[in-house]
């Protein structure tokens, strides 16, 4: 039986305390590591050990973010990139999952398409950049398309592998109960691979940011990728660094949302 805290033996309380201290020190060290690195960076820039014009510095980045925020540019460019990323993320996840379901249901086509999927997966999608621009123009559409292309193949392959790894015995069970193929899909295949789906979401958070920023490098008039390219061209490294920091924060937040979703699903899965 599980006991309440008051009922624990002294040894167990000591163990729990040790555990708490350990967790706390991990968190503390994490923060200290970041602060130390920032301090070293700041210091080196302050005493001109490195050229702050080239390497920027934490204080210059903060100042830059401040100016960007005041002018409204921060919110504007962040929103443009976030919008494109979310769009690429959602479309590729949905379309990829649907393609995976279709391929799962049609083993003949799955076998036919196997080598094509492998080639598409290994192809560096950025190579398609010029084609996308010619076909879709120089705007949001092309950028979203870039993000979509980067996510779609890996989504399809991961989801398909998830579906294929479901134990044959469970499928057989439903067959002996007289379930149709569609019922097997809706009662078993899809709910059983929810874990796979969450891990695809996690991969796609990273991938969609890569795709969108890459798209913005190729063709854009706004967005954080645009700011980075622009900053690099005019040698405003503070701007480049500031944009990267904002990218880090946004991508981290998006990942956190998926992690929360994962927690909810896990709780539901295990009762």
């Amino acid at each position: 039986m599980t006991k309440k805290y008051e009922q624990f033996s002294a040894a167990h309380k000591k163990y729990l305390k040790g555990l708490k201290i350990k967790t706390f020190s991990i968190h503390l060290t994490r923060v200290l590591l970041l602060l130390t690195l920032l301090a070293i960076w700041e210091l080196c820039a302050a005493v001109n050990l490195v050229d702050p014009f080239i390497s920027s510095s934490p204080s210059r980045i903060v100042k830059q973010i401040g100016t960007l925020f005041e002018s409204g540019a921060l919110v504007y460019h962040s929103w443009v990139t976030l919008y494109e990323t979310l769009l690429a993320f959602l479309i590729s996840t949905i379309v990829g999952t649907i393609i995976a379901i279709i391929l799962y249901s049609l083993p003949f086509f799955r076998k036919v398409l196997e080598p094509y999927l492998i080639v598409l997966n290994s192809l560096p999608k950025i190579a398609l950049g010029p084609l996308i621009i010619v076909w879709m123009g120089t705007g949001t559409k092309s950028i979203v398309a870039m993000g979509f292309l980067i996510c779609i193949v890996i989504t399809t392959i991961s989801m398909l592998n998830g579906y294929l790894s479901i134990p044959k015995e469970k499928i057989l069970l439903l067959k002996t109960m007289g379930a149709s193929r569609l019922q097997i899909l809706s009662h078993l295949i899809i709910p059983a691979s929810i874990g796979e789906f969450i891990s695809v979401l996690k991969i796609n958070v990273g991938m969609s940011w890569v795709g969108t920023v890459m798209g913005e490098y190729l063709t854009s008039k706004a967005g954080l990728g645009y700011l980075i390219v622009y900053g690099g061209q005019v040698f405003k490294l503070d701007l480049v660094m500031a944009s990267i920091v904002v990218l880090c924060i946004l991508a981290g937040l998006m990942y956190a949302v998926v992690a929360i979703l994962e927690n909810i699903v896990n709780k539901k899965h295990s009762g």
Partner: protein
Amino acid sequence: MENLLELKNIELIYHSPKSETHAIKNLNFTVKSGEFISIVGPSGSGKTTLLSMIAGILKPTQGQITISGIKVSSVTDQVGYMFQRDNLFEWINIWNNVTLGLKFKNRNTNENREYAKNLLEKYGLKDFISHYPSELSGGMRQRVALIRTLTTRPQLLLLDEPFSALDYQTRLAVQDDVYSIIKNENKTAILVTHDIGEAIALSNRIIILSSRPGSVKKIINLKFDPCLTPFERRKDHKFNNYFNEIWDLLDT
């Protein structure tokens, strides 16, 4: 008693690119309504294959299988299948697991749901209806799996080593449970097992298959006092005699 199941001259050949395997040849037996039959045999004698054919999942190359006089050509309502693993769906609760079979083939009637509820109540699982499978012990899970099989009201239960994934102590307890449930509900059962003791403890008759290509080597009628539970049978003096007899048959 009438014959519920009849297998006539069953033959099964497996094809693969490199070879052709004669899994079952010239196999005949019948099962009467209400009987508990065990099938034992060396590995590769086609025991599970046999169950798949009776369930209508696999077509025999030759021969005919009939249930209540009707030829088995596809999955039928008459048969319920129980596997080595309980195969409960972790993402739905016990009630939804038990009534899974009712969601197909228009079985989701009030009457059937009531029947499922009664089964859960009768066999001590009522309090776990809204629990999830992960909260149940291995023995309880296998009991839920049996009740799930019963809710579609099959006449014939096919049990494919349903106890072998359980630890020894639990296995003995669940054998008693499953046996009494099957007897209570007046079902006919065919059990495939590697465990000779299990076969003796549970069955009316034991069918011993020869090695590949599998056919009936011998059928042993077990004569125990019908009041004995599987666990009590193990303590009966006849138990060891049967064990030795079957052991010798499997050895050669």
